[in-house]
């Protein structure tokens, strides 16, 4: 398998970033990891994951859509779309890589979201296999193997080398572009690392969590469950779960008055918010109970109903560690399953 020694990572990053924009997860001063555009000297984070997910690359928090200029009764409409530059995201975990497949099901079906597609077309996703899953991880619940991540090109580490395998044409082009730095090598050590990770996966506290009792056919049973009151009673109605979630995909479209024109933009929205899907008569979900229920019903029932059984969660565990009141999809699943 093609590989490169760990101590040559800087020259690898330099070679990639010479040809196109490269983003890697790196540690901030406060210790948390975030994706940043690579500059010489930047160190790859050894954290399991970033606080913000990798969905930001394809579905940024805010994005301008169109501009209007007004002169008297004349309105000029300016299409501000531009071709996105080519870029590589390095070090995406298997959970986040799967989230792109889920977002594609929303944004790449007719009518195709040209803003999202533009970024997808120009982005190469290079994933990184996990070796130290955390107690909050439950990607295997959704059939994700963190030791064999998807993405255009998968990368593994055994502590001495990074190993590369292309999963797509784009991934092959990526491997070809760095071929001069790579060498063939045996995978004996890597196989041991993978076996060890798999053994840990079996011992994760959430390893038995199953989607068996969820899906599109559970609508009435769960929508009318009497558990929602208790589950949502201490929900703060903030958007933390939504905004750190790699699969949450809802947005609002708003106009910004610049004085001599209008900038129309979209920004992430959260079903937890009181003005989500606000219509002429107000928010159809009157209390936090309905808003809370919406988020979990969407991931566990509505999304699979509309997408051949695929769930709207990848088990990355961000909501488990970031919710201010520690309420999350795992607790919801377990409570709903209790008869």
């Amino acid at each position, binding site marked *: 398998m093609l590989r490169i020694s760990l101590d040559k990572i800087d020259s690898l990053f330099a070679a990639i970033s010479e040809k196109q924009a490269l983003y890697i997860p790196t540690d*901030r*001063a*406060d*210790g*948390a990891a*975030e994706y940043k555009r690579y500059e010489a000297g930047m160190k790859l984070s*050894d954290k*399991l994951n970033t*606080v*913000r997910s990798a969905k930001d690359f394809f579905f940024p*928090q*805010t994005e301008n859509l169109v501009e209007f200029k007004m002169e008297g009764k004349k309105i000029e409409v300016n299409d501000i779309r531009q071709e996105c530059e080519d870029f590589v995201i390095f070090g995406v975990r298997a959970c986040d890589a799967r989230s792109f497949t889920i977002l594609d099901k929303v944004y790449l079906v007719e009518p195709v979201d040209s803003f999202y597609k533009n970024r997808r077309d120009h982005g190469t996703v290079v994933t990184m296999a996990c070796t*130290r*899953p*955390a*107690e*909050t991880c439950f990607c295997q619940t959704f059939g994700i193997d963190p030791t064999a991540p998807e993405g255009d090109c998968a990368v593994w580490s055994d502590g001495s080398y990074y190993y590369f395998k292309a999963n797509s044409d784009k991934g092959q082009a990526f491997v070809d572009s760095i071929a001069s730095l790579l060498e063939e090598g045996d995978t004996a050590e890597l196989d041991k690392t993978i076996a060890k990770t798999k053994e*840990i996966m079996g*011992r*994760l*506290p*959430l390893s038995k969590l199953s989607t068996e009792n969820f899906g599109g056919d559970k609508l009435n049973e769960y929508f009318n469950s009497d558990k929602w009151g*208790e589950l949502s*009673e*201490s929900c*703060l*109605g*903030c*958007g*933390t779960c*939504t*905004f*750190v979630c790699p699969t949450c995909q809802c947005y*609002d479209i*708003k106009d*910004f008055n610049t004085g001599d024109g209008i900038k129309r*933009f979209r*920004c*992430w*929205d*959260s079903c937890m*918010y*009181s*003005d989500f899907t*606000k219509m002429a008569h107000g928010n159809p979900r009157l209390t936090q109970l309905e808003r809370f229920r919406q988020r979990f019903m969407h991931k566990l029932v509505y999304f699979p109903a509309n997408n051949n059984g695929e769930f709207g969660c990848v088990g990355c565990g961000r909501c*488990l*560690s*970031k919710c*201010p*009141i*520690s*309420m*999350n999809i*795992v*607790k919801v699943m377990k409570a709903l399953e209790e008869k």
Partner: protein
Amino acid sequence: MQEAMINRAKQLLADGTVSRVIGWKRGEFAYDITPAVFESAEELESDFVFDDFTAANVSKYLVKESAKEGKVLVFLKPCDTYSLNQLTKEHRVNRDNVYVIGIPGGPKLDIEKIKAKGITGILSVKNENYTLKIETLYGEETMPFSEAILDKCASCKSKKHVTYDELIGEDGDILESNRFDMVEQLENMTAEERYNFWREQLSKCIRCNACRNVCPACTCEKCVFDNPSSGVENKAASDSFEENMFHIIRAFHVAGRCTDCGECSRVCPQNIPLHLLNRKFIKDINELYGEYQAGEDTTSKAPLNRYTFYDCEASIVHERGVE
């Protein structure tokens, strides 16, 4: 302590003094505790928890719970009692419908500080003589208790319960805290250094509103930032100006009412030290209007809610002269 709390709650439920209990509910792991309302002895016995991770200030839930029928029992740590007093003073909580049991305060633990040491796969956390024994999927780890203390507890201002109906454990004193040290450091920076400090911090903001929604001083029925008719409503900061202004305006709005409970910084998913903005206001109020602690009582007038002849800024009272 947990046992004594459960027993007392069960008694008060059984004799009809209260109909509900606000406390903390056990989670999936050692640390993921959820504030909860308990209605029966069975619920209390199976789920009620009070330990090193029960840091959440549950006083804000009383806005909703004290408006319901029947008394609600709440367990408050010293810092949380300041929040309740302030909410009572602002007529946001009906104190008559609340039965307060004062319980000992922290220091509580910050799981993020444990994880920041590279400790992962955490299965249990035990405090043995102020050494944390952490059982993980990757073997046992240890670290000093003192290195995992929540920031808000590390600069604790008071061990005294300012309101309660009964206590479990001893009451404490108001402490000499070091809570203004970092504010002083910021004051001593040049304007540019300070600006850079705050830009680095506030640029991390994802506008999740967790700081606002957890804040016991933020109890507006409809926040101006959520109200499309306000003209300033926004769901995402479109530029650095909006990023800064959301937090600065919020700090202004709670100035003189913020008790410094520290929840804003505790819940921030991006580790922004938001409490420093509030502490700057508290420090300024102390210096300009005399020592004042929001939530210390329910009757005194707040410095920013009244005018006096000796106010630092020229006021109507000043122009009119002392009667």
